[in-house]
């Protein structure tokens, strides 16, 4: 029973009194309505806009949020109202549903926003009223198509583990995936063009010889044309076989239109090869050559416009069918009429009705060759009516076809536009992401810097560099930091990463930094004093130091970031501290080393500290090779790692720019 007519139930029950006198048996007892609640107003506060309605209105649909006890979750005791933090505009239609029993879909509303609201309030979209249902479904379908397009593009991303077959198939379907595919695409296109041109030129008469009349080029240069043809057919055959091999479902591929066109294009050649010596069928063989023209359809793989045209024609099949049918009807009618009209005249070309078909077609399509012309007056009258109606009949279905084509074409344009926009959108998203990463890194640096400056005692710079970070951000950063600690890796920005990767590539063993590396910096406090762990080895400098340190313990060789055969790249974090005095740079290493030994701090009053934080991809590789700068406390070994805290070589190198790199912890 529709809840909307619940209001009429008392009436229906009252009217049941009409049955009483005719009833023979006693009536059942009526249910008692004990909970006789006065109808009360409830207030629904949706983002500040207050809606009020009767409680019984909402109770009409007990399987929705507002009609059930679920709304009690949203009850606000102090204000004695139900508060929903949702869109008040969309809520209007939802509340109207309770009031009138009909759900309407407002046109200005975005379809996904509306769906979300419906889902929140527990209303199924199927009960949208007839007036709005069509619109709703159309919009929904459009939206789904749009999202589907986006998803399809996502599939184009390279999957890491694709078999050779799958790669090939992808290359065939989408030539922009790799250069090979592109090359293949252009080569086949070129050969299709060559083949078609050859076919055409073959029949052109070229140069009459002295005795004979014009001979077509094909017969004059038989060998040349044969070679061309063979080459093209070979390419096509190879292409077809490769496609067949790569196709995920060979059976389906063989049934597809394109493959049939391929086969039809190359088959005449092979048939010709087989049957060259048989004189009887050579005539048929010549006819088979006609099929070579189908090679031109192979272009449709290369041209999207052709595909759209084909698709349009397919989708307009009913209109085309109607056109054909109506034309046939008209042709028959007019042919008959003309035949009988012209029967009287002598030497008339209208010898039979089928013969008149030709006249009718030529007239209706306004061609008017003039090879058949009516001579009688009646014939002329009917002929003119025929041509006039021809224009109409042909013109009618054409706009439908055109509009279909236009719709499909624009859809394609839209898809292309979306693809282009998507790149921009993704770029923006990436920038936003890197922005937030950078913010995190920045905060880390400034955190380090703060601590450093704390240690070194300068106040001025501290204020300059410290940024005010909101609570939310700080919590977020803390979270990221925890992650870093967990994985024993650090986040780093792209530049550093690139730099480091370059340097890893460049580095190969021998260049050593003169500074000895001292290890075992247990006690050494670092410039970032409170860090307990050393994160990485930093070597983004022009003097890469090899790792002379004999790292005790089983160390997988790929730890050493200097070694060329190193696997994963280490990304390093380094704090570049520019020390003010150049003099110190010579002694820096040793001093720092010493300092490493006694754990003193960097004496760097001025200057900027920039931190670059580099994360190491593999946990065991932490230890360090080129640590320079103040020694770090020994990094506790990562739990799974076999490497037991091999103390890194702490080395300091100073670059020519007076930057002492200190690895961050």
């Amino acid at each position: 029973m529709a809840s909307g007519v619940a209001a009429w139930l008392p009436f229906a029950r009252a009217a049941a009194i009409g049955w009483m006198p005719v009833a023979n048996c006693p009536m059942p007892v009526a249910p008692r309505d004990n909970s006789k609640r006065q109808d009360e107003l409830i207030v629904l506060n949706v983002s500040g806009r207050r809606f009020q309605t009767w409680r019984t209105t909402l109770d009409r649909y007990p399987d929705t949020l507002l009609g059930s006890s679920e709304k009690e979750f949203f009850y606000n005791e102090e204000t004695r109202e139900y508060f929903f933090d949702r869109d008040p505009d969309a809520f209007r239609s939802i509340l109207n549903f309770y009031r009138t029993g009909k759900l309407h879909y407002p046109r200005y509303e975005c379809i996904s926003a509306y769906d979300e609201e419906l889902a929140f309030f527990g209303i199924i979209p199927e009960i949208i009223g007839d007036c709005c249902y069509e619109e709703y479904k159309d919009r929904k379908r459009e939206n789904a198509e749009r999202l589907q397009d986006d998803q399809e593009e996502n599939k184009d991303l390279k999957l890491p583990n694709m078999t050779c077959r799958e790669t090939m198939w992808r290359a065939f379907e989408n030539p922009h995936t790799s250069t090979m595919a592109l090359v293949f695409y252009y080569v086949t296109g070129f050969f299709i063009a060559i083949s078609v041109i050859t076919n055409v030129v073959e029949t052109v008469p070229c140069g009459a010889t002295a005795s004979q009349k014009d001979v077509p080029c094909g017969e004059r240069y038989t060998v040349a044309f044969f070679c061309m043809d063979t080459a093209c057919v070979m390419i096509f055959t190879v292409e077809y076989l490769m496609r067949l091999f790569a196709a995920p479902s060979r059976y389906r591929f063989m049934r597809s239109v394109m493959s049939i066109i391929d086969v039809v294009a190359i088959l005449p050649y092979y048939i010709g090869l087989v049957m060259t010596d048989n004189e009887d069928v050579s005539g048929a063989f010549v006819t088979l050559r006609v099929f070579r023209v189908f090679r031109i359809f192979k272009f449709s793989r290369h041209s999207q416009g052709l595909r759209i045209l084909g698709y349009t024609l397919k989708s307009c099949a009913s209109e085309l069918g109607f056109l054909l049918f109506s034309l046939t009807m008209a042709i028959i009618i007019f042919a008959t009429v003309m035949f009988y009209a012209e029967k009287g005249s002598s030497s008339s070309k209208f010898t039979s009705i089928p013969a008149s078909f030709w006249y009718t077609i030529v007239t209706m399509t306004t061609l008017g060759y003039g090879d058949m012309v009516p001579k009688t007056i009646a014939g002329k009258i009917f002929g003119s009516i025929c041509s006039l109606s021809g224009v109409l009949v042909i013109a009618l279905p054409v706009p439908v076809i055109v509009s279909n084509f236009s719709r499909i074409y624009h859809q394609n344009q839209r898809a292309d536009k979306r693809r282009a926009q998507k790149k921009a959108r993704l770029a923006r998203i990436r920038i936003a992401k890197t922005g937030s990463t950078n913010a995190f890194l920045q905060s880390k640096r400034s955190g380090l810097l703060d601590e450093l400056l704390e240690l070194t005692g300068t106040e001025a710079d501290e204020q300059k560099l410290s940024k005010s970070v909101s609570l939310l951000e700080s919590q977020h950063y803390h979270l990221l930091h925890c992650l870093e600690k967990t994985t024993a890796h650090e986040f780093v920005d792209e530049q550093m990463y690139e730099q480091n990767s370059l340097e890893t590539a460049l580095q190969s063993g021998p260049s050593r930094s003169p500074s000895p590396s001292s290890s075992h910096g247990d006690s050494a406090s670092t410039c970032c004093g409170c860090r307990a762990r050393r994160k990485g080895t930093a070597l983004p400098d022009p003097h890469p130091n090899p790792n002379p340190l004999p790292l005790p313990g089983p160390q997988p060789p790929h730890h050493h970031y200097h070694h060329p055969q190193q696997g994963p790249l280490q990304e390093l974090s380094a704090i570049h501290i520019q020390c003010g005095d150049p003099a110190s740079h010579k002694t820096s290493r040793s001093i720092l080393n010493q300092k490493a030994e006694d754990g003193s701090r960097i004496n760097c009053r001025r200057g900027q500290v920039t931190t670059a934080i580099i994360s190491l991809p593999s946990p065991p590789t932490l230890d360090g090779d080129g640590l320079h700068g103040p020694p770090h406390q020994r990094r506790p070994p990562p739990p799974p790692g076999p490497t037991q805290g091999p103390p890194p070589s702490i080395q300091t190198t100073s670059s020519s720019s007076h930057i002492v790199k200190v690895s961050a912890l």
Partner: protein
Amino acid sequence: MSCRKRCKREIFKFAQYMFRLVTGTLNTDSVEDELEQSAVRHRPEGLEQLEAQTRFSRKELQILYRGFKNECPSGVVNEETFKDIYSQFFPQGDASTYAHFLFNAFDTDHNGSVSFEDFVMGLSILLRGTIQEKLNWAFNLYDINKDGFITKEEMLDIMKAIYDMMGKCTYPVLKEETPHQHVEIFFQKMDKNKDGVVTIDEFIDCCQNDDNIMRSMHLFENVI
């Protein structure tokens, strides 16, 4: 109408048609279509008057009117709507015939539409009236042509309408002659002087003597 006149009119219409065909005005809406039926709007009498005329309290009238107006924003119910609404309560069978009779019973001034006053007056009788009034109302319902007598045919119509509401799927299975049998039983009970019709007095007398009927009359008292 004479033949000539008719011919003349036809020729004139044809000429008009050809003229319109030539000038391309064939499809224009004729002027008659412009006059739409003005929508029926009805506003009920004031709350105080209704309160005085019926036995409902103010609050009850408010609730009733809200429900009524929700379903029929124009303020009156026409027969189609009435049938629709009533049919929703009886989805298995066909309630349209009985709804038709009910409509006639409610439409006391027989103007083809039930206004809120009619509606509320009827309900007042049914729910708050005396036994006499209720029985009177029932008699009115059965008396289709409102002539003061219930004939067997009228009763049969009513009975068939009631059985139609049951629909097909009943237990035991409804047979063709069940309404007839029921009418017989009714007439046996009610028609005291066996003259083939039941008058209002016979009806009321008989009902007052029947315990079942008396009890069932009180059944729906607390509906509102």
